[in-house]
């Protein structure tokens, strides 16, 4: 979302400036205000999640039945739920679950997908055909449907939902890694390493894999936002994170039962999901524009 929005660069001024020692991609990223905002938000979210036990005024599952369904106040900034649990504390702890359930499927999908893409793109031929047909089948499902199918087979729950979202992520990474590897395998440096006697596993890991990291890191950053959204959706449907764990999607599913009298139950967890996904989307878009400056 940065194309065309960059602030004027230092080079456009007539005053001679010392060349920046930063790589061009970093400079492009830092010039993109939306991307920097995204990065700051991501860092802030990680800090909130890490320090949730220090920042949260109450334990996330501490019940106070005398303070049920109270609106925002000095005591409970975001109000309380039907068990008198502090919403602010649950939102803060929910950041841990959300980041965890955003990262784990992406990292798992990335590992499996990249391996498949590397093998398919490097060896081509029959193995490529078979692997890519399997990926085509996975891509033939709408993504939420595939996740629901996996949860439908394995049963609801946090671990199964994470597996489901990871499986949804695999074909995207596999295809991307494969396309980069196909372009790379004929490059001179790969041919040279092969001529020097490097074996396939070493060639793949030391020489081919690094070329895929740029595009895959962009896809992964955008993928985290998508994974968080999918996990929140599954939890909202009662198929992901189960109560009493503090999770934003589950909080929304529970909170809707207390409308219209307790809108705060809806407001804060929903805003937290939106802000987190927005942060990763801004960051991912910025990363893509910085690494691919053609536009």
């Amino acid at each position: 979302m940065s194309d065309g929005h960059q602030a004027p660069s230092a080079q456009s001024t007539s005053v001679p400036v010392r060349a920046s020692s930063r790589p061009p991609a970093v400079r492009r990223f830092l010039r993109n205000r939306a991307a920097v905002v995204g990065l700051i938000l991501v860092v802030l979210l990680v800090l909130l999640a890490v320090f949730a036990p220090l920042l949260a005024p109450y334990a996330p599952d501490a019940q106070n039945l005398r303070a049920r369904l109270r609106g925002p106040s000095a005591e409970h900034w975001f109000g309380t739920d039907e068990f008198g649990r502090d919403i602010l504390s649950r939102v803060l702890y929910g950041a841990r679950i959300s980041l965890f359930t955003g990262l784990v499927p992406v990292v798992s999908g990335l590992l499996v997908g990249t391996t498949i893409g590397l093998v398919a793109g490097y060896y081509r031929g029959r193995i490529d055909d078979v692997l890519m047909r399997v990926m085509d089948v996975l891509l033939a499902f709408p993504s939420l449907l595939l996740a629901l199918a996996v949860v439908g087979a394995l049963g609801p729950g946090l671990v199964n939902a994470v597996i489901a979202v990871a499986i949804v992520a695999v074909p995207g990474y596999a295809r991307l890694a494969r396309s980069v590897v196909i372009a790379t395998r004929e490059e001179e440096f790969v041919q040279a390493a092969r001529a020097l006697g490097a074996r396939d596993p070493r060639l793949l890991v030391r020489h081919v894999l690094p070329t895929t990291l740029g595009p895959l890191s962009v896809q992964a950053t955008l993928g985290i936002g998508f994974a968080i959204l999918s996990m929140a959706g599954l939890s909202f449907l009662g198929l992901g994170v189960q109560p009493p764990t503090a999770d934003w999607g589950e909080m929304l599913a529970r909170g809707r039962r207390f409308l219209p009298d307790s809108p705060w139950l809806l407001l804060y967890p929903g805003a937290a999901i939106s802000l987190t996904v927005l942060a990763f989307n801004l960051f991912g878009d910025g990363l893509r524009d910085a690494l691919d400056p053609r536009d």
Partner: protein
Amino acid sequence: MLSYIARRILGLVPVLLGVAFLVFTMLWLAPGDPVVALLGDAAQGIGSDALAELRRSYGLDRPFLVQFGSYLGDVLRGDLGESIRSSQTVLSEITSRFPATLALAGSAMLVAIVIGMVFGVLAAVYRGTIVDHVAVVIALLGVSIPVFWSGLVLMLVFSLHLDWLPASGFGSWRHLLMPAAAVGFSSAAFIARITRASLIEALRQDYVRTARSKGLSSRAVRLKHALRNALLPVVTVVGLQFGGLLGGAVLTETVFAWPGVGRMLVDAIRTRDMPLVQGTVLFIAVVFILVNLVVDLSYAALNPKVRYE
């Protein structure tokens, strides 16, 4: 064009087979005995001898591939099994829910196309101005805000506070407005992003410069020349979104208690109604694949280059 259509349809056969295989194996992915997975809660209290008998009667004791072959035969005959909960055939359950899903998907797409294209075109034409920034921010919010949250907020405001629209249910256009707006806004964001990017790219092309140099008005150049060409990728995104929605806007249908296919699938997963889960997943996937085929073919019809590649 005919050979292109034939090639595309032939190419779908292995994908459809793969989809059917994946749906079939869902029963074996489920933890425990497949016959227990198939019977759901009804399996509780059945003795092991009776389970073995049921396993035989369902044909689950036969070799895996033989079972898949017979499953495939059943599917091709339109037999998707029987729902455990309702004892109705899965196909009749799906066909009774599909009209509601179709109504939601169609109206949501209408909202999405109108909003998405208007914002996308405005953002591209006024690139770099405040109009562009606002359109880009709205599109970004559209892809970041969970549809089940925007749906609940709409319900809170327009049903529970203002009392203008019914909070849930199905039957009239008033029931349709909020779900269609919630899903439509989310899809509009994708359409706006691709319209903007595609139109910006088109406005840079030589034919646009030629049209301008011939003295055509700026408006004519943008709408007649650039937008027409920019529409090709937009068609793909619209098709993908529509295909996904036809499979049931699962989350929105749940929020608004909309009696569509998506909500039925979630209920079936919750109640472990495995035949209904399998049948619905297969149905939705096939619909998605067919809509994508239609999109591909219309793309080829609009862009001759694709046909000859």
